[in-house]
């Protein structure tokens, strides 16, 4: 092999023992080909991975439309006791998209909180603020009781005992003619300050509202 390649023998490849290096190759050329291999592979992988990932993650950023639904005539709710009503959270999947809300007329003696002053009816979600089990309203004790991990809430949905991290969630309410309508859900902290709806188990007091930010799917009305 005493041709012209002998003169151009690279001092960078052969003596550096790069695996697979051939005679006459330069480091620049080799780095170019290595870079091409990595870039092309990366682009090809990204070409299917990114759309698929975006497709799977898409629902996280899709805003749920707000709806108002009639839950009954105004006469069916009293000032001092809750009436369970069925609300639809996700339309189109039948019973699986529904939930229970406890509704009661605004009572100035109990609902002294300024945030509630403009609410004609108090509608409380049946999802426990601990981990989402179905709470039941116990009339005799005037308590909401969670059957899973022992959460207890008072008449206003504030925590009395057990592990729940915030009061029970509520729904916006309004009166249309003679009927009571229920709107989107919202969460409250222990002072009944309103926040965009959070999932159960996410505290809203102090630093909690920043540790568990609101999501694009569920914004406040």
């Amino acid at each position, binding site marked *: 092999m005493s041709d012209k390649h002998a003169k151009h023998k690279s001092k960078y490849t052969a003596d550096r023992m790069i695996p697979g290096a051939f005679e006459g190759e330069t480091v620049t050329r080799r780095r170019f080909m290595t870079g091409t291999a990595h870039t092309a592979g990366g682009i090809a992988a990204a070409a299917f991975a990114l759309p698929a990932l975006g497709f799977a993650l898409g629902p996280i950023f899709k805003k749920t439309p707000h709806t108002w639904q009639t839950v009954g005539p105004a006469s069916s709710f009293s000032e001092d006791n809750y009436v369970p009503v069925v609300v639809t959270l996700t339309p189109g999947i039948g019973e699986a998209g529904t939930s229970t809300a406890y509704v009661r007329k605004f009572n100035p003696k109990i609902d002294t909180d300024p945030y509630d002053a403009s609410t004609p009816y108090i509608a409380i979600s049946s999802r426990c603020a601990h981990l989402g089990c179905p709470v039941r309203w116990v009339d005799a004790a005037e308590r909401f009781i969670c*059957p899973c991990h022992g959460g207890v809430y008072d008449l206003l949905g504030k925590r009395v005992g057990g592990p729940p991290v915030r009061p029970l969630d509520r729904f916006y309410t309004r009166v249309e003619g003679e009927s009571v309508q229920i709107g989107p859900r919202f969460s409250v902290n222990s002072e009944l300050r309103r926040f965009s709806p959070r999932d159960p188990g996410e*505290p809203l007091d102090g630093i909690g509202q920043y540790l568990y930010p609101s999501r694009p799917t569920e914004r406040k009305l």
Partner: protein
Amino acid sequence: MNQREKEEYLRDYSILKAQGKPFFPYAVAKDGAMACVVMVVIIAMSLVLGAELGPKANPTTTTYVPRPEWYFFFLFEVLRVVKPPSLVPLATIGVPTLGMILLFLLPFYDRSPERRPERRPIATITGIAVIGAMAFLTYSGANAGSPTAIELKTPQTVLNAGGQTLAEYEAGKKVVAQSGCLACHKIGENGNDGPGPQLTNIGARLERQGIARTLVNPTAPMPSFKNLPPKKFNAVVAFLTQLK
């Protein structure tokens, strides 16, 4: 393990391996026998226990008492026991994540060359303690009664008395179960231990009058039960008096 210990292990292991038997058919025979046992167990469980299908999912329920599959009972029990709300994220995410990280990194912090369990007391005791804790949590999770029912055996004295006493006892039991007392009090295996005191033996600690007075004029946060109809109220008092 330092380099010398590593080489020592590899040398010992290669000798042990050279003295061993081939994987096929000796180990495979054992594995095959075990596979048969596994299949027999699965098939027997399927035949005996069947595939139960509960009532259809109903998100509007207010009476259903959710319970997980048995292998998540330990987590369920942890969630039930951790009461202070500020510790809830610790119980749901913190402790399980920490456990997983400790499990992942086990070979990287336990680097001693010793392998015999009796010569690594810390690892062995920790392992047994973790298994014991999981077993205990699973057991108590499995026995966690519903907070809306009382599964207490009627005492013999009440059964013997019969008539009015028995009827009042049963009625009181029902009212207590439905009135949410178990949210804060434990009665037998049912209910939550706290914030209220256990009521399993309340009859031995308080007189009939005392129980009635507490129900009407309780200390916060317990609500007053003075609005209960007198018949139900008397039944509750009668039931609680019998808990000795």
